[in-house]
């Protein structure tokens, strides 16, 4: 007979405004165990995490911690019981320093009424050393890069003697090296008896640190088994209930006149001698490490970054891009990397988000908007891109990541562009939506659009693209045919 689990969820149910987010979810987490919570976006993972954190209260069911049963938790109870959550949005205080952010939870539970800067700094320094990270303690969070914010969020969770650390996609903003050090931290935590509930879309990471995988789909547990009994395919199947085939790039006419020609494009310090051609129906991949200039290139092609020299030709005609409006008018669309902050108006409806790029097309006499036309077009796009939403009036922020990405796509497609630039199209997107987005990319190309895909996901580039341009220090250093390399080899060429 083993001892009682650290945390046991017993038939947890929760609904929001009539939508059942969780129904009868039960599973347990042992001390020192690595448990993966897997599921597509919208499957109920985030709600489950919020219930464990005490931020949301379940409608039904119980949470049992150390044998003590709770019908609902409260953030203070959860923290006192050693449950720490690293949220996807970090939940940090932008106006406070790194040291204060890290030490805040610890200060709250310590019972101190007065703050002592030295005590806070010492604690923060100790935690950062524990995870082998060096971030200046007195910097305000708002001044940090996303990856550093993520590390601070991780450090804050470790500042208290946590017994269960919940990580909601902790690696999305980290580079490969940082991911490896995070995984090492997780192993050390587990060795010290701390349980880890790990939420990630990156299956390779899951298999590295988790002994058990709990899969939820549509708010129900569909599988709860040791990690060894899954492989990538069966996990994907359990999460989505479907089988997938990798999308491959479909053939295009290599003799067609190029839709885009770029010659000797340059900007001091960021881009140098960029030249390539893109044909209708072609999917061109751009690979490169962070800082290689790949995002700058995308922004330059969309008029967001002024260039010093070089020319851009669209359908053989030279164009000048003073700003995004010029690019849109010329038929170039750009779907940015950070879909949440750069691409969407989160508190506005789907219909408005789709139409915002080309309101001119819907304005009648006196500048009034044709609301009926707008709604009809939005509904049409929801259907074509199979966005899971009850109607086009729903606010974008209530959609899952994959569906938000589709709304961004719909906005650009609604303008009938000639070229679409996708920057990190599947970042933070679950496996089912990812396959859908790959299929959409192939469809777009088939409609004779020129597509440029920038991505960190090397198998994605290899699978989706006809050609891959490798960028380094603002230059294109190599061109590789899509099917000609495997992910390992491409990674080696990027790093060399």
């Amino acid at each position, binding site marked *: 007979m083993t001892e009682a689990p650290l945390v046991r969820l017993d038939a947890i149910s929760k609904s929001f405004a009539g939508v059942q987010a969780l129904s009868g979810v039960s599973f347990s987490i042992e001390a020192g165990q690595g448990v993966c919570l897997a599921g597509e976006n919208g499957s109920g993972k985030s709600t489950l995490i919020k219930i464990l954190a005490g931020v949301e209260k379940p409608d039904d069911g119980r949470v049992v911690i150390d044998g003590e049963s709770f019908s609902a938790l409260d953030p203070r109870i959860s*923290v006192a019981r050693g449950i720490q959550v690293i949220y996807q949005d970090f939940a940090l205080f932008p106006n406070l320093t790194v040291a204060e952010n890290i030490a805040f939870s610890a200060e709250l539970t310590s019972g101190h009424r007065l703050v002592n800067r030295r005590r806070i700094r010492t604690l923060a320094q100790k935690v950062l050393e524990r995870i082998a990270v060096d971030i200046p303690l007195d910097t305000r969070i708002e001044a940090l890069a996303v990856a550093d914010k993520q590390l601070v969020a991780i450090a804050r969770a470790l500042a208290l003697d946590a017994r269960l650390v919940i990580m909601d996609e902790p690696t999305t903003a980290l580079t490969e090296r940082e991911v490896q050090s995070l995984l090492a931290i997780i192993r050390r935590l587990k060795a010290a008896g701390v349980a880890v509930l790990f939420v990630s879309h990156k299956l390779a990471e899951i298999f590295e640190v988790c002994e058990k995988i709990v899969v939820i789909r549509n708010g129900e547990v569909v599988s709860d088994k040791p990690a060894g009994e899954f492989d990538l395919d069966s996990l994907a199947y359990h999460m989505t209930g479907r089988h997938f085939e990798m999308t491959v790039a479909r053939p295009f006419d290599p003799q067609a006149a190029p839709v885009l020609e770029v010659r000797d494009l340059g900007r001091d310090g960021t881009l140098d001698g960029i030249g390539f051609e893109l044909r209708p129906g072609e999917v061109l991949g751009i690979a490169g490490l962070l800082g290689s200039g790949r995002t700058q290139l995308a922004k330059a092609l969309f008029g967001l970054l002024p260039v010093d020299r070089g020319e851009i030709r669209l359908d053989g005609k030279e164009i000048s891009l003073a700003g995004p409006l010029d690019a849109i008018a010329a038929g170039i669309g750009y779907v940015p990397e950070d879909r949440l902050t750069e691409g969407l108006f989160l508190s506005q409806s789907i219909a408005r988000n789709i139409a915002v790029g080309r309101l001119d097309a819907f304005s009648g006499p006196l500048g009034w908007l044709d609301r009926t036309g707008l709604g009809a077009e939005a509904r049409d796009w929801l259907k074509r891109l199979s966005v899971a939403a009850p109607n086009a009036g729903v606010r974008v922020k209530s959609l899952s990541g994959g569906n938000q990405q589709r709304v961004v796509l719909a906005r650009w497609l609604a303008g009938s562009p000639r070229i679409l630039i996708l920057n990190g199209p599947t970042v933070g997107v679950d496996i089912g939506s990812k396959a859908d987005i790959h299929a959409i990319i192939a469809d777009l190309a088939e409609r004779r659009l020129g597509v440029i895909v920038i991505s960190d996901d090397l198998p994605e580039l290899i699978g989706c693209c006809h050609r891959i341009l490798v960028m380094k220090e603002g230059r294109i250093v190599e061109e590789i045919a899509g099917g000609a390399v495997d992910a390992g080899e491409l990674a080696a060429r990027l790093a060399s």
Partner: protein
Amino acid sequence: MKIDWTRNETLVFLVIVAFCLVATAVDPAFLSLPTLFDLLRNSIVTGIFAIGVLLVLISGGIDVSFTAIAAFSMYTTTLGLINPVFVAGFRLPPLIVTLGTLSAFRGFLLTFVGSQLISNVPAGMRDFSRLTMLRGTTGEGYFYSLPWAFLALVLVVIGTWFLLNRTLLGRKIFAIGGSSESAHRIGIGVRGVQVFVYAYVGALSGLAGIIRASLARVANPFDLVGLELSVIAAVVLGGARLTGGYGTITGTLLGVALIVLVSNSLILLGIPSTWQSVVFGTLILLGTGLPAYQAKRAALRAG
């Protein structure tokens, strides 16, 4: 120390210096102890209000009802607990709530007190106002003094500075202003802190009202009307953000100094008092616009 041009404090300080230089050039008598004492005396009420407003702004809220609460306190006790009930208890937007209480309290006063002035303020208050901390006589025999009430401002400043920077409660106020959702998630009792903040402002407003009545030796329901925007302007000039999470005591005091300076000394410069609000408005636009412009330039340089 390196001068940080993106900080409001630096700019406000420079404007104050410039203003004083111009004022002295126009009237050499400006640079004297009587003027200083006069300004300090005039900044007591505005200063106490401003410290309260600073706290609310840092917590991410706003309060426009404090002058009405102060006017009320000239007649009766503090009403400061009504705001927190609506803001924290019912989660209503603080601007709406305090606009409501501002109007209600002021209307209530006018209904029941009318425009009647109470000139027989209690003897205790009268005596208090006569107690002077520092006094002196100029060469021409002009008598000047600084009342003990100034000490109230000093105590409020020190107390609030300690609260904001040295207590966990103060840091919670900053945290909530930075992100109330994050604060809730790490287990800060957001509502409790909000109740404290609005009650604190209420208490400070009451204090300011009593001091005002005893200094003026009269209670007047029309008193302080319109001061709320000047006070908020002073705090914002000092670097606090209406979106919450930012603000310092030093900046607020500089902001108050500037506002008091402008409202008391424009006449000295021969500028009609009707220009006062124009100057306030310009100062607010410049004071908030310049740092934003500097920050933008710094961001551009950083790439």
